[in-house]
C-alpha cells in the first residue's frame, strides 16, 4: 500500500469524527494520508480546483517516496 485517501462527505459526522483517528493511525505506521473534503450531492459545497491541487500534490509526494 502506497497511501490512504479518505473522503469526507459534507455533513457526514462519521467521516468528520473519525478522520483524525485514521490520520494518527496512518502517521504512526508511516503511511501517507490525505483527507479530501467535498460534497457528492451539492457542487456548491465543493471546490474543484482545491480538490485537484490536493490530490495532485498527494500523488507527487507519493512519487517522490519511490
Amino acid at each position: 500500500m502506497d497511501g490512504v485517501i479518505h473522503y469526507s462527505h459534507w455533513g457526514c459526522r462519521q467521516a468528520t469524527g473519525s478522520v483524525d483517528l485514521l490520520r494518527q493511525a496512518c502517521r504512526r505506521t508511516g503511511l501517507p494520508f490525505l483527507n479530501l473534503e467535498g460534497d457528492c450531492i451539492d457542487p456548491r459545497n465543493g471546490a474543484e480546483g482545491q480538490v485537484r491541487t490536493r490530490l495532485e500534490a498527494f500523488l507527487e509526494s507519493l512519487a517522490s517516496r519511490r
Partner: protein
Amino acid sequence: MLTAGVDVGSLTTKAVVLEDGRWLASALRLTGASSQQNARLVLDEALAACGRGFAELDAIVATGYGRISVPFPARTVTEITCHARGAWAEFASTRTVIDVGGQDSKVIRVEPPGRVVDFAMNDKCAAGTGRFLEVMARALELELEEMAQLSLRARHKAAISSTCTVFAESEVVSLIAQGRPRDEIVRGLHEAVCDRLFGLIARVGAEPQYTMTGGVAKNRGLLTVLEARLRSRINVPQNPQLAGAYGAALIAWEQARA
C-alpha cells in the same frame, strides 16, 4: 541548460529563469482577468531581463492555480511541491513551509531534499490569506506596508472573533466606530490570521525550522506575531513571492537533466 518556472497565482503571476539551476532573472505581474496571456508576458519579461529567448528554453514547469491553462507547452506541478522545493533550496534546514498567498494558505512538512511529507490547506474561503489582509487594509484606509509598521508598535490588540473575511470586516468597521486605535485593530487582525495558520501548522505537526513563502511573508508585523506564537524564528527567502516559481524552475532543471 535553460529552464523556467511560471507560477500563475490568484493575484500575481511570477516567472523565474535559471541556467543550470542558477538564478538568472525573474518577473512578476498581476494575474488579472487574462491569466493565460499574462503567463506568457511574464515569462517573456523574465527572459528579456537576462537577454534570452523563449526558443532557448529546455524545459518549463507551470504551477499555481492557473497551471493547467498556460498557453505554452509545460509540465504542471502543484504549488505545494514547488514551494517546498523553492523554500528548501534557500534554507536547507526547513522542515515546515508556511505559504500564504492571495487566495490560499498552506502549511507543508518537508524532508531533505525538499520532499513533501504532508500538507494542510485552507478551505474554500479567504480567511487567513493575503486577500483577508487586503480587504481589512481597505477598510482601515491603510497600505499593506503601513499595516506591518502599525502592528509592530501596537501595545494592545483588539479582539477579532471572526476569521470570515466578510464578518471580520464588519467587526473592523465596528471597532473603528468605537474609536479603537488602528494599530490595535491591525494587531488583532494579524493575530486572527495567525490563529488560522496555527491551526494548519498543528494539523501537519509543527517542526522547526520554519520558512515562510508567498507575498504575505513580506509583512513583518504578521511575521513577528507568528514567531512569538511558534516560539521560533521564521526564515524568509529574499523574494518570498517568487518561491513557487523558483521551485518550479528547479524541478524543470532537475527533470530536464535526468
